[in-house]
Every structure is written in structure tokens, then in C-alpha cells.
């Protein structure tokens, strides 16, 4: 499995970077302004083209945006492969646990939020984002309208309010459901946790996910094709004949 996996990982990363480079190359620099019969005459008025031409020939300022894209990408150094370590997994789970009462509780919000108004959250969390070391995870569930119904801030929402000692509470929530089981060595693991309110695996396991729980194969979109959920944890217990 080891070799097979690293090959997969290698391909995955190459493709990811390819895609990223592809999009980052959308805006070409001035000296890449396309010339020749496909480009617009510099400073001149563009000649109207027939729709048939438009299909065959790119034009406009981005006409050359694909030119050499793959070549440029292949010149980049290969990305480091994703390596899953137990230490990283535990660190990721520990960080998760600090933001929720138990695994499955809605995470609290580590930053200030507007106290009024709907849908402010989705500007970052609808698709997820990573800026420097800060990750705005993609929401794990369909977008609902009233985010603050479930997600409250971690600190007093009032600017400059004095700190009040937290209440003592002996609740010990389930911090993690552990690892999924594998039918044999190398089999895809089952999903160890309930999936209610987290049907979108990419929220935690996608490209912005923490090291240790991040998928090695982000290009695969249908996670439950290989990773089975637990029917009982998902409130669909199998009913056996009495």
C-alpha cells in the first residue's frame, strides 16, 4: 500500500498544483499580451468577428491565458506529499476539541461576529479559504440562513467587557469517535463519527483541512463511495428481524 499510496499522492498533488496554477494564470502580465491574428490590434478598434470565428479563436485581453500553462506548471517543483502521522492527527483532533463541547457540537466562533444580520458568515465559510496560516473552514452542512442559531462566539461579544470566570462544569463530552475500522489492512476506513450536519467531508478533510486528518486524495468527490457511514450513529439503525 505504501508505494501505491505515495504514487497516488504524487499524482494528486501534481493535479492540484496544476489546477491552482491554471487559475492563477488567468490574469496574464502585460508582456504576455497576445499578438497575432487571434489578438486584438493594439490600440485599434477590434474587428467584429463572426460567431463561427469566436468559437474557433480566442480573443480579448485573456486570449492567451492558456498559452503555455501546462508547461509553466510542470516547471514548478513537485509539492511535498501529504503524510498522515498519528501526532498530527492527535494535534488536529485536540484543536477541534477545544472549539466544541463534544464531537458533533456546533463549533464556537473564534473571532468577532456581527450581532445583527443574516448571512455574513458565508462570505468566507461558503467555500472555505486559507489566508496565510488562518483557515476559514468550509461549512460542513448545507447553508442555512441563521448561522448564529448554532454558532456562538467564544468570547464576550461586547467590546472591552471585563472577563467573567467561566462556570465549572464536569461534563465530559465525547472528544473524538476514534478511527474508523478497516475490513482488512489497506481497506478504506469507515466513517467513525455521525455525519448529521457534516455531510460535506471537505470541510475538515479537504484541502484546507488540518494536517493529520486531511485527505490524501482530494480529487475524489464521492467520499461515501468508499467510506461507509455508521447507520446507528446516523440515526438510521438497521432493523433486524425479531
Amino acid at each position, binding site marked *: 500500500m505504501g508505494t501505491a499510496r505515495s504514487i497516488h499522492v504524487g499524482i494528486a498533488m501534481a493535479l492540484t498544483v496544476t489546477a491552482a496554477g491554471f487559475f492563477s494564470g488567468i490574469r496574464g502580465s502585460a508582456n504576455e499580451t497576445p499578438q497575432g491574428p487571434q489578438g486584438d490590434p493594439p490600440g485599434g478598434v477590434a474587428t467584429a468577428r463572426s460567431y463561427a470565428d469566436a468559437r474557433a479563436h480566442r480573443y480579448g485581453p485573456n486570449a492567451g491565458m492558456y498559452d503555455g500553462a501546462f508547461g509553466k506548471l510542470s516547471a514548478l517543483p513537485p509539492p511535498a506529499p501529504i503524510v498522515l502521522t498519528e501526532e498530527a492527527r492527535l494535534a488536529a483532533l485536540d484543536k477541534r476539541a477545544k472549539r466544541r463541547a463534544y464531537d458533533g457540537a456546533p463549533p464556537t466562533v473564534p473571532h468577532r461576529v456581527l450581532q445583527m444580520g443574516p448571512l455574513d458568515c458565508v462570505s468566507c465559510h461558503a467555500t472555505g479559504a486559507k489566508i496565510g496560516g488562518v483557515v476559514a473552514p468550509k461549512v460542513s452542512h448545507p447553508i442555512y440562513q441563521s448561522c448564529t442559531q448554532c454558532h456562538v462566539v467564544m468570547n464576550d461579544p461586547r467590546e472591552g467587557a471585563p472577563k467573567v470566570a467561566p*462556570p465549572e462544569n464536569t461534563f465530559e463530552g465525547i472528544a473524538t469517535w476514534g478511527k474508523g475500522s478497516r475490513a482488512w489492512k489497506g481497506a478504506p476506513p469507515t466513517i467513525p463519527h455521525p455525519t448529521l450536519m457534516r455531510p460535506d467531508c471537505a470541510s475538515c478533510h479537504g484541502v484546507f483541512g488540518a494536517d493529520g486528518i486531511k485527505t490524501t486524495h482530494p480529487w475524489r468527490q464521492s467520499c461515501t463511495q468508499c467510506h461507509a457511514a455508521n447507520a446507528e450513529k446516523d440515526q438510521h439503525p438497521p432493523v433486524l428481524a425479531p
Partner: protein
Amino acid sequence: MERRDFLKGSAMGAATVAAARLTKGKDGLALAAPAEGAGVTWNKAPCRFCGTGCHVQVGVAGGKVVAIQGDEKAEVNKGLLCVKGYHVGLALYGKDRLTTPLLRKNGKLEPITWDQAIEIIAKRVMANPAGFAVYGSGQWTIPEGYAANKLVKAGIANNQIDPNARLCMASAVTGFLSTYGVDEPAGCYDDLDKADVIVLWGNNPAEMHPVLFSRIVDRRSRGESVTLIDIGTRRTRTSGFCQHVLTMKPHGDLAIALGIMHVLIEKGTYDKDFVAKYCNFRQRTDPPTLDGKEMSFDDWKKALAEYTPEKVEKLSGVSAKDIRMLADLFGRRDLKITSLWCMGMNQHTRGTAINDLVHGVHLLSGHFGKPGDAPTSLTGQPSACGTVREVGTLAHGLPGGLLVAKEEHRKEAEAIWNLPAGRINGKPGYHTVDMWKRFSTPKAKGGDIDTIWVQVTNPAQSLPNINELVDPSRKDPDKFLIVSDVYPTQTVKMADLVLPSALWVEKNGMFGNSERRTQQWFKMVEPPGQARDDCWQLIAVAHKLMELGHPGMKDKDGKFLFHTEKDGKEVPIWDYKHYYDVNVDERLFNEYRKFTRFKHKDLAPYSEYVKARGLRWPVVEQKDGTWRETKFRFAKFDDPYVTKGDIEFYHSVTKDSRALIWFHPHEQPPEVPDAAYPFWLCTGRVIEHWHTGSLTMRIPQLHAAMPQAYLELHRDDAKALGVANGEVVIVESRRGSCELPVWIDGRGQPPPGSVFVPFFDETILINRVTLDAHDPLSKQPDYKKCAVRIRKKPAAGKV
């Protein structure tokens, strides 16, 4: 049905077996190292908090609650919860749980035994039965409330029982009774999925009923269009989702409803057919009664004539244009309109009147009796409907909507309870404010209540004007306060005797939510220390009273009021060791069911609720032996008790199957701001905390998000007062004061001249400031408006 019987035969049991198999991998690895959390068992329970009535799945491992999920099978919440619901399991584990009975000795609460505690209560009753009162709660489970009601009405027979729900939905009850002749909404939450327009009358569901609110606004995510109209006295989180935000003057709702009716009549856009077939008109009498006085449609129209949109604008502060906009919406037959309200209309010195008028708007415009067309009140407590309104734990009530004042009702109750004729007292007890006033008044001055047993509520924080209603009793040696609770609340700290109670899934229980849905759960974990079920406490006191010779604790055959048999032998359920030998909830519920037929509020047998995620009454048995719930009352297409016409109000006050459309004039509230007290004060809640915060303030995540109460103040007022965000002010009324920090442009935004304070914080008791003036019929106090003044707290050393 016992829990283990249920498990044996149910899918849950099968699932547990299956899950045990699933955890074993083929390679045995999973067996050798079972996944963490594999030992979690799940079971259903309604949430402990508000009246929405969401079902949660409770995950238990090692005898403790370890996780919560929204219950996907629950029709109410469909798998979703709010932040309180997701954290409800933590409510059990605050470090300062009460675990032993405590008696005040030389000013200090000291541990005593349960036997001593039960005997002390029984002896207080024996010493002065007439002066003993029970103050209960809409958080009582249905069997708890039923046991308390039976103890007081059938046993002690003084009718001195009233609940905290008096403070929360009594005006909704009187509104339903005076309009339809029978309590509780005709519609249900399904209306929220169908309505084109939802009118929120002084209601902030984004914070108070978040799951219902999401049920509405998430329709927009699916591409549906729903128009939300917010009528309120301040901007709230809800306002941000509304197409129309109509900011009214406090008390302006009366004028707004009258203005809508005026325009419907003026333009002739009211539903003539509906009114002709199903409505009568009514005016109030002096003193007011629920039945009022007949009025012709013409006289009713004449009374409305003065409420032109222009006049209503002056009275309410809402523009004439917006009044016409509302009336034009109600005037359209092609739209479905649902009204929602909660404390804004209920905590109102004209609470019955505004409830009547909003029902009237819907009846007049025919927006009634079709899915999506309904006037629906919401409740704040998980069983305000189930335990208070249906079980009748009110000073004037008997189970099933019967009344102590009516001889035929007493006879019915005596028959069901097997009591000697005449046992039940025909004189209603004291309503909440009266009960506490008498408790806080010396005996010599007419304070004839000397002992109050409080269960599942925190009146020393939640009653209005606690300076007068609670504090004096604590200095009077004749007055004895008993409190059953789970944490050292404000009330517990003032008590003479404290009983530690089991909480939520530490006991069996049943709740009834805002849409007539009765719900059931089983005990899942043990209560801490010596904490015991409230229901057991009531039964133990009843039995001790019987031992002490109280004549009321036996039925006419000489059997104990709570006599329980198993296999032909009496089970001593008053002895806690034997309390769970039978399912006491099931026994009490199946007895209580007999009462529910009189007003067509039929409940199914207990075992049906074990299988369901709640059922909406009337639940009627079908020919094939199954039980069918009713979503839409009084409507032929769904309500089996409708026998004629499309709509039939079969408990009509006028006995002609018609509902009543009332006229109530606009009136000023009893206290309005003046030069000395220039601000309006409104109190209420926030999403993080539930009521007095005794549970939610002990949950770290909720506490962190909202650790302290505050005063919402408009920027202009803050400027005039010279206070900045976070600075402490003194808010003061003619009754009392408290100090708290201001929050400008915070969670809610009151207009200039108005302030808002949430009441969850026991360190900042805003109910030292509020008014105990109440509605003449419902006796519900008005926490939403009184006059206060605000000044910056002087720096230390200065006065």
C-alpha cells in the same frame, strides 16, 4: 411500558445489537482496539429548554451524557437544533448540583435526610392546610404537574397551585378561550412551511425559537419566497431577515390590529363569506369577562370607525402607509398568512385584548383554517402547554380544561379520581402575583399563605417587582419557603428547605410543546447524589400526609390517592427504592388521559408516545386500532371532530359553532415615561440563555458567548447621558434599581427613549425594576414596559 420492555422489542434494541456486530472488523483489529465512542447508546428526548419542542438524540456512555444530536425523525426540528439544544446535555453537569436535602438552621442551609425533609413539608401542611401553596412550572413534566394538581385539588383541596407559566402565556390562554371557547392554537408548525407571509407580533424568534425561525427562513435557501414582517419595539436579530420592520411605540399593537381591521372594513376586503358563516361579534364588559357582551356587526364596525390608519399612526408610531400595507396583505385571499407571537403580546396589561384582536384580524380576513393561514402563539417553556394548560395546574383549573368553579366539572373530576362527592373545593386559589403578595404580607395583615413549595422554577429572579413579592417573606418568621431544584438559584439561596431534584433525562418524563404535541422520554442516567424526581417528592409528601391522618389523601374506598399496583400487589412508590419498580409516568399519564376527552384534547395511551417523536392532539383511535394525530383543528379536512361545514368551532362561546371577533379599544399602559422616569424599559431573553439562566449559565460555551446582562441603549441617548459602550449605569424605576453596563449598537437596537435588559443574569436582577401590573383576565404581568430613569454610575467615592 417499562424501558427494558421497550428496548427488547424495538428497533433501537435491534440497532444496538447490529452496532455491536458492525464494530468487529474482519481482521479483528477493531475488536482488539474498539473505536473510541463505540459504547455510546442513543435515545430520544425532547429538548429541556423552550416550547418549540425539538427532539434530540442523547448519547450516553458510562452512565453519563456524552453527546447530543438533532433527531432526524422529529417533525419539529428535522435533525436541526439551536445552540442551547446542542449543549443541553451539559446542563446536567454544573459543578454545584444540589445533591442533598438542606434545611435552614440559624440562617445557614445544612444537610438533612430525605425522611426529615418530607416530614417537615407534611407537617407544614397539617399545621395550616389553607395556607399551603404549590408554585409550579411549565417545565414540570406532564406526570409531575398532574401529581401536583391531584395532590392540591383532590388531596389538600385548597386549590392553591399556580405555575410560572402565569408569567408567560396566561394571556394567550384567555385569548384562545374568549375567541374559540377552548384553549390552544388551531394551527401548527406545518403552517410555517406553507405561509406566504409571516407576521411577527412583538416576537424575536431568531433568538427565542431559533429552530422554528430557521424552518421559515431556510425556505429561502430552497428558492421559496416568504415575506416576513416584524412588528416590535426594537430591532432584533429577527429584523435583519424581515422585508418590513415596523417599529411601534410600546403598547401600540392594540392600535395596529384595530387599524388593520378598519381598513379591511373600509375597503370591503374582509372575507364576507367566512364572517357570515363562522363569526360573531363581541365587546367587553366592566369588569371584563371571557364571555363579554353581544355586539352586532354594524355596532362593531362603528366602534372601529375612529381607528383610521392616520389615527393609528399617532397611537402606535407605525406609519399609516404600513398599516394599509398590512391590511392589504390580509385583504388578499391568494396569500397564506400566519401570525406568530410570544411574550410581546402576552406580557401585556391588555394581553387578553391584543390576543383577541389578532385572532380577530385572522377571522375577519378569513386567514384561518387552511395550511399556512393561522394565528399561532408560541410558548417559552417546554411544557407550558402540556403541563400547565392541558393538565390545568392553575389556581382555577382541573385537568383537561375543566374548571374548579363549575360543579359539573368537579363532579367529573371526582368520578375519575374516585373521590367522595364534594371533595374538590369550588373556590379558585390565588393566581401567581396574588399568591406571592400574600406570602410576602404578614399573617396579621391578611397574608394568608404561609408556606410555598416551589418546583422547577426560580421566582426570586423571574417574578416581577421581587422587592415586594418575595423579599418581605424572607424576613417574616411565619413564612416558610420550600424549593425543589437542581442548582443553588436565587430562590434556593433564600429558601428554608431545599430538595435536590433529578433533571431532564435523569428521570422519565413527558412534555407538551406549542403545537399541541405531546412527547415522551425515558430516564437515561442516574441523578447525582441524593437528587430525586420531583414527582416522587410530591407522592412521598402525599403519603406522609396520609400517615399523619390528613383525610384528603385517600379516595372514597380508602385507597391512597396515588395507589399503584403491579401484579395485584400495591407498589410503595412513595419509598424511593421502589419508585422505579413501575413506570409511574405511564400510570399517571394513562389516568390523566381520561380527562382529555371533555374538550376534545384526546391523548393516546402512553405506549403510543414511546414510539413517536410526539403526537399532536386530539389523537384519535382509528378503526384499525392505530392512533391519528390532528394538525389543523376546527377544519373539516383534518379535524375528526368537525361534523358540519368546512370550519366548526365546536367549543364556541356562543354555542353556535362560531368564533368571536372582539372589539377592544386602544388604551394607554398603566405606567408611561414622564419627566422623572423618561425611558421605556423592556425585558426579555437572548439566544444563549434560557430564562433565569440557572441551567445555561452553567454551560461553559453559552456562558462564554454571553456572560453578563447588559442594557441596550440608543447611541443618541448614550451621548446625552455621557456614557460609552461598557460603562456602568444605574437603571431605576419607582420600585427598585440595578446596575449594569450599556451596550450600544449591540445585539438589539432600541429606538431613542427605549432600553432593553435581558433577565438571565442572577447577578443583575432587572426584576427589581419591573412592574407587577397585570392583565385583568389573565393576571399575567407586563415585563415589557415600565418607566425608568438611567444615570451614569458615579465613580467610586462620589455619590
